[in-house]
């Protein structure tokens, strides 16, 4: 019913190759996007902004970046927290050094800075593989956080070592700092994520994405058919870090407004991003969003349910929360080891035949 292909004919290669080949899916997608851009901003309040939507969008961005590296290029990385820190601190230094700079430009440039750092830390991947590489990227994680904690230049010599985002306007509306209206920060985050998810999707469908996947599936074979491992791996690290840097910049500027490196960008964040990618689905753009949704929204939902609705003691609720999340991770892996995105894909397959399966 929902996914009817009948009557959906393609008359050109272009139409056949598009991202959403089925018309009803296309309509659903655009309806969703329109709702996100044009409807949600009218209903959003502080709680939904700061605790639900912005966290979801920022983490989706980070998961997207990591998925490019892990899911498409097969290089497992645990340096996400460190790279997010690079993005955040780049944003802070740019904002304070050039107060006139447009905030969107700041965010994108921070991504650029992170890409350069990411490329440097990606070099060992040419020699080290699998879990060995994952643990080796932890060197980046610990080193970067240490650097931002140690050298006062990065936090403008403030006594506490915390960085605080000054207020910046976009079209006359504040989008950073405490006075920014929820819809404004939400729209900025949504726009950035939408644009880069779009780019990401097309990047992975194109030549460079295919090179990454060739490296992922078997690097030696890829090398033999003419994929240069250096270029493919380093470009994956660059693009991935670029995305993660943007996520870090948004994390600092429009979500929190003040961060401290040791907690905000600690090792937990690196693990969290990796969990999102695996739960959501490796090598899937949609999976990045589903994974972020699962790990960001589920705990909030469980908390509201157990504490808000059932009135349990907060500590018991929180112990149950983490147990339920853990159990659900295992459950989903058993049901569908390839992540939530694969689950969605299977559902779609079923829906296409429904209500008349063979």
């Amino acid at each position: 019913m929902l996914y009817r292909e009948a009557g959906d004919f393609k008359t050109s290669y272009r139409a056949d190759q598009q991202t959403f080949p089925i018309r009803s899916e296309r309509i659903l997608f655009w309806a969703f996007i329109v709702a996100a851009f044009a409807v949600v901003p009218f209903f959003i309040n502080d709680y939904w902004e700061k605790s639900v939507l912005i966290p979801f969008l920022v983490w989706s961005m980070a998961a997207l970046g990591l998925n490019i590296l892990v899911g498409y290029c097969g290089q497992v990385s645990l340096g996400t927290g460190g790279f997010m820190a690079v993005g955040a601190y780049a944003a802070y230094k740019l904002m304070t050094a050039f107060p006139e700079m447009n905030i969107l430009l700041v965010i994108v440039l921070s991504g650029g800075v992170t890409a350069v750092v990411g490329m440097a830390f990606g070099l060992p991947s040419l020699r080290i593989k699998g879990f060995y590489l994952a643990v080796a990227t932890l060197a980046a994680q610990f080193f970067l956080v240490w650097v931002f904690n140690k050298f006062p230049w990065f936090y403008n010599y403030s006594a506490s070592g915390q960085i605080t985002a000054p207020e910046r306007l976009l079209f006359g509306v504040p989008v950073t700092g405490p006075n920014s209206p929820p819809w404004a920060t939400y729209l900025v985050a949504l726009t950035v994520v939408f644009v880069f998810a779009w780019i990401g999707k097309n990047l992975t469908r194109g030549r460079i994405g295919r090179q990454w996947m060739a490296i992922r599936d078997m690097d030696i074979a890829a090398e033999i058919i003419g994929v240069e491992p250096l270029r493919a791996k380093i470009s994956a690290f660059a693009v991935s870090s670029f995305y993660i840097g943007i996520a870090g910049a948004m994390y600092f500027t429009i979500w929190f407004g003040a961060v401290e490196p040791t907690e905000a960008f600690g090792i937990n964040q690196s693990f969290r991003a990796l969990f999102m990618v695996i739960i959501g689905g490796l090598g899937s753009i949609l999976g990045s969003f589903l994974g972020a949704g699962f790990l960001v929204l589920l705990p909030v939902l469980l908390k509201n349910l157990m504490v808000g609705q059932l009135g349990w003691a907060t500590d018991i609720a929180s112990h149950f929360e983490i147990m339920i999340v853990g159990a659900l991770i295992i459950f989903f892996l058993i049901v569908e080891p390839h992540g939530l995105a694969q689950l969605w894909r299977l559902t779609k397959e079923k829906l296409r035949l429904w209500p008349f399966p063979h």
Partner: protein
Amino acid sequence: MSPDFLYFIETVLNGLMSGVMYSLVALGFVLIFKASGIFNFAQGVMALFAALTLVGLLTGQVPFAHLIHAIFGVEAQHWGAGMPALLAVIGTMVVMIALAFLIERIVLKHLVNQEPIILFMATIGLAYFLEGLGDLMWGSDVKALDIGVPSGGSFWWEDVTREWAAEGSDYFGMYIDKLDVTAAIVAAVLVVALSVFSQYTRMGRALRAVADDHQAALSVGISLRTIWVIVWSIAGFVALVAGIMWGSKSGVQFSLSLIALKALPVLILGGFTSIPGAIVGGLIIGVGEKLAELYIGPLVGGAIENWFAYVVALVFLLYRPQGLFGDKIIERI
């Protein structure tokens, strides 16, 4: 000998001792990875869970006391005077074996032949679950753990080493923690016992067969599932030992689960599949980071040992991508 040289020796010695403590954690990872190719993220949480259970049994805590109180309103914190240390250790071991059994039954059985990263993810789910369960069962306060492991600086060693310094220098002897020495002995015994077990027992041979080749082991009639339960039980035992050693130092509390982070550089340095690798890796990391912290640290502001350990590991890896003692990676098309 000049005091400066003695300080150097002292640093190296203490680095070796810290290294042994890391190795104790790394051993658990290696055992499971070797037998099943699973990178067990839950190893640290298992150590915490084992230590919590041990303290709970020692002091006679009622499990889930808080939950029971919240649901039934019954105030029951303790069920008695607790039990002697040996009994508590055995009791904890029974719990860990039961846990291994359940993990196999509920989780691993369904995930046979999946990719390593999926199995890794499953152990993360397990880590989350155990983290919540441990807290719910035994409460989240700091618990002192004392089962008679000696600790504190050794006077004897201090006196011996004081003699080594040149006459007239105000050298006051070398420091060594008795707990660390104990840990080193325990680790040595553990490694010897594990090697004997895997070399000379039927079970051990089956274990090595599985580690070598799952398919071949299955075809000669070794039950993979039994082996997994056994391996996870042994890993649980190693986790208990690590939990006791680290717990005696800092008290048993949530942070105990973070010791896994200390084991990771050891693991990649030594190789995921080698038990001697875990020990040697631990020693190298321990000495490396202590020397760095004491001799390079003051120049750059300190607290460098965390990332330095990874840098040491990284440098070794660039020469040997499979770790010092890891199985050689053979690439075929």
